């Protein structure tokens, strides 16, 4: 495993338009059940967010997304007046999670974001039988943990977290910046629009970001068809991240 530590300067975030200050910054990256990506892409559509910035880095794979014949970076940031949303259309390779997440945290700090929230999934073995999907949360500081009380989310008291959301939580915690990780129960290996709807409901009760999930649930089957390829790639990448360790029970040394 290449132990070279990539520098922050190798990831650039280029802005296309004015960036709103004091916004809530949401991250939706390919993860279990594609919960983050499905939720984030629904937010873009439902709230009519516009692309205001994109990530430019040689660390990312040589890939662009074509929309209407024009190229776009695979990691893009959308916004409206009080919301910033970073979304990636392909899974972040395990080796470059640190510089990518650090660049986003640094950029968010420069824009005085009120807090950072990652949307992702908590894989559940018996997801098939579940009717109501619980939303779990972890926070970067004790103050942020307090804001979760009384909301309809369960605090993830003990466990392992693997992936970009884990590094985001750790690094924002290191610098005392407010951040949350929201995880809805979901399928590990299959796209889960219902979990995306659940995590968006959790987002609404905690941050007040309102979004109607009716259309998300109606288009559930269509979404499951469309994101098959992204799910397959994400599966391969999750194996390299050793995502399975999230099932383990840690020995919490106090």
């Amino acid at each position, binding site marked *: 495993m290449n132990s070279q530590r990539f520098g922050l300067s190798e990831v650039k975030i280029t802005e296309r338009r004015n960036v709103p200050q004091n916004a809530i910054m949401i991250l939706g990256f390919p993860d279990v059940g594609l919960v983050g990506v499905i939720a984030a892409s629904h937010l873009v559509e439902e709230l009519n967010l516009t692309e205001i910035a994109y990530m430019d880095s040689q660390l990312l794979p040589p890939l662009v997304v074509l929309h209407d014949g024009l190229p776009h970076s695979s990691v893009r940031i959308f916004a409206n007046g009080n919301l910033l949303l970073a979304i990636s259309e392909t899974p972040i390779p395990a080796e470059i999670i640190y510089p990518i997440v650090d660049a986003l945290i640094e950029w968010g700090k420069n824009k005085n974001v009120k807090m950072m929230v990652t949307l992702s999934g908590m894989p559940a073995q018996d997801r*098939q039988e579940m009717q109501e999907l619980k939303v779990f949360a972890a926070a970067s500081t004790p103050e942020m943990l307090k804001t979760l009380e009384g909301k309809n989310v369960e605090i993830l008291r003990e466990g392992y977290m693997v992936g970009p959301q884990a590094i985001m939580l750790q690094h924002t915690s290191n610098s005392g910046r407010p951040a949350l990780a929201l995880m809805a129960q979901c399928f590990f*290996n*299959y796209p889960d629009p219902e979990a995306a709807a659940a995590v968006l409901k959790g987002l609404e009760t905690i941050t007040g970001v309102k979004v109607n999930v009716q259309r998300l649930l109606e288009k*559930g*089957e269509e979404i*499951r*068809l*469309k994101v*098959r390829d992204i799910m*397959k790639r994400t599966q391969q990448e999750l194996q390299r991240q050793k995502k399975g360790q999230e099932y383990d029970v840690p020995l919490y040394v106090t």
Partner: protein
Amino acid sequence: MDQYFDSFEKWAERFQEELAEKPSWNLKACTIEPLRNMHITPTEVIITADLPFTEKDAVKVKAIDDNALEITAKMRRKIKSEELGITHRRGEFHSLHCQIRIPTPVDTSKMKTTFNKGMLEIRLPRRHRRGIPAE
């Protein structure tokens, strides 16, 4: 013992995926490849597949030979290529179709399938030459 099955299962999955990279859809046959996973336990092989837009009676599972299955599911409606996001080819998709190679010997005649909310689950008992290992 569990580690053996784990690494075997991972090898089998990687083998399937790295064999040939091709699109997950076939316009000539009007089929789309569904997502599927295989889980190997000491006593059985469990295969799950995500089949959106299908009803229970439209799903057909056939054993091709002793260690391969074919899943075909006619979709409730035709899906146009643009709906899937494919803009460089024109066409329609009628059904979901895939073939699955099972890397360990199983008894396909004792196959049990369940279909719930668009998820297909197939359970196949494993064939052991030396008897079922004690749990």
